[in-house]
């Protein structure tokens, strides 16, 4: 892939016209989103610029250690972010951290081992970012659902424990539904990809001047990589986290304590 395009600052500035349009619509229809649009625009400029410099730094240094450091930081902050959405799950940070780390390490390890991508910053940084970001969303959705379902199913789970079922057996239907909801979004969007929307990577590749064949192939690789990462993270997070609802003696913990 030797394609490369140049975007001048004035082009970015010109696209702000569309932000102005969004703000005008919000103001006109009293959607009360003007402030949010302003904040969102400001944050996107600052955050992406900073990330751009960080990536440039890592590309220039060209060492694997900086890449690993960046990925580790993404896993850490991803787990912190996901924890807020899993508020009903006791001590969800540990399971999320392990889930993201495992999903990132195993999928990146596999695509490198299979020879799909070279282990260089140019591939590992963007692919790692997507893998960990999607893993974070999936495990956050899964644990969010787990927390809701455990609360709803309390009496059924306890009635099952009363039969002498293990915590694992009593929670199995709940764990299954949580895992499904963590994975379903990506499975569904993979089904409709290309029909209802053009995925971001493909759009980027086409804009950057790559051939449609290459754009499609890369997009497929990334979709499949993400499917792997999303399943691993949702599975790991739910299997580690459901235990936190039970005591050693297979008793359902009091939600208040």
């Amino acid at each position: 892939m030797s394609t490369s395009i140049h975007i001048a600052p004035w082009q970015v500035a010109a696209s702000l016209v569309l932000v102005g349009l969004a703000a005008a619509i919000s103001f006109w229809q009293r959607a009360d989103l003007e402030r949010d649009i302003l904040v969102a625009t400001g944050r996107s400029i600052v955050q992406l610029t900073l990330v751009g410099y960080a990536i440039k730094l890592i590309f220039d240094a060209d060492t694997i250690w900086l890449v690993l450091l960046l990925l580790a930081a993404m896993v850490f902050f991803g787990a912190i972010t996901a924890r807020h959405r899993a508020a009903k799950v006791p001590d969800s940070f540990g399971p999320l951290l392990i889930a993201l780390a495992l999903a990132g390490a195993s999928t990146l390890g596999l695509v490198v081992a299979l020879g799909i991508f070279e282990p260089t910053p140019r591939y590992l940084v963007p692919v790692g970012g997507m893998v960990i970001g999607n893993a974070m969303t999936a495990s956050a959705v899964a644990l969010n659902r787990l927390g809701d379902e455990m609360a709803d199913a309390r009496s059924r789970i306890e009635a099952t424990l009363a039969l002498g079922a293990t915590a694992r057996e009593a929670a199995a239907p709940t764990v299954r539904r949580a895992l499904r909801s963590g994975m379903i979004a990506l499975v569904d969007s993979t089904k409709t990809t290309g029909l209802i929307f053009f995925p971001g990577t493909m759009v980027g590749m086409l804009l950057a001047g790559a051939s449609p064949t290459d754009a499609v192939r890369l997009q497929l690789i990334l979709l499949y990589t993400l499917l792997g990462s999303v399943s691993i993270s949702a599975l790991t997070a739910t299997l580690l986290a459901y235990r936190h609802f039970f005591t050693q003696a297979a008793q359902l913990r009091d939600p208040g304590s």
Partner: protein
Amino acid sequence: MLFELREVGVDRGGRAVLDSFGASVPDGSTAIVGPSGVGKSTLLRLLNRLADPDRGEIAYRGRPLTEYEPLALRREVALVPQLPALLEGTVESNLRYAAELAGEELDAEATLARAGLDPSFAARDVSRLSVGEQQRAMLARALAQRPRVLLLDEPTSALDHAARDRIEAALAELRREHEVSIVLVSHDPEQARRLGDQILEMPA
């Protein structure tokens, strides 16, 4: 003695629901009565270790409850909760699940009969049962494990008179069989007299 409770205390939501509670529960049929909120359900859940007391000791057949493996204990001392909570599927699949956990052969027809249900209930989907039928299916599910003790938490509280009478008839029959001891929670003193050899009153 079936159960022996000494100085039992349980805290919930920062206050003592049970405090220095003592009681002896012999084999046979015991009814626990007391007004709503005194801790009857809390007490019953201690007896098969769905919860552990914060203070005091409970013995089952002369041995501390904590010495029993909780999963095995729960198959021997079965609890039927106040509100039915069956697993998705048919009545029979629920009975089978329970029987398999306990390593018992399932005779669905005989088990249903002991809970006052006719054999046609085996194939019924649990989501299509009335609350009274669900309550009897819960009883049948517990019986499918061939427990030695049945803990019943207000088994008729959500039911009309006809459904209540059917459950009571089934329980009276179980009591006559003498194969299983019964600890039954009730807020109805009349029912307690009908079903208990012994009545344990919980002070308000």
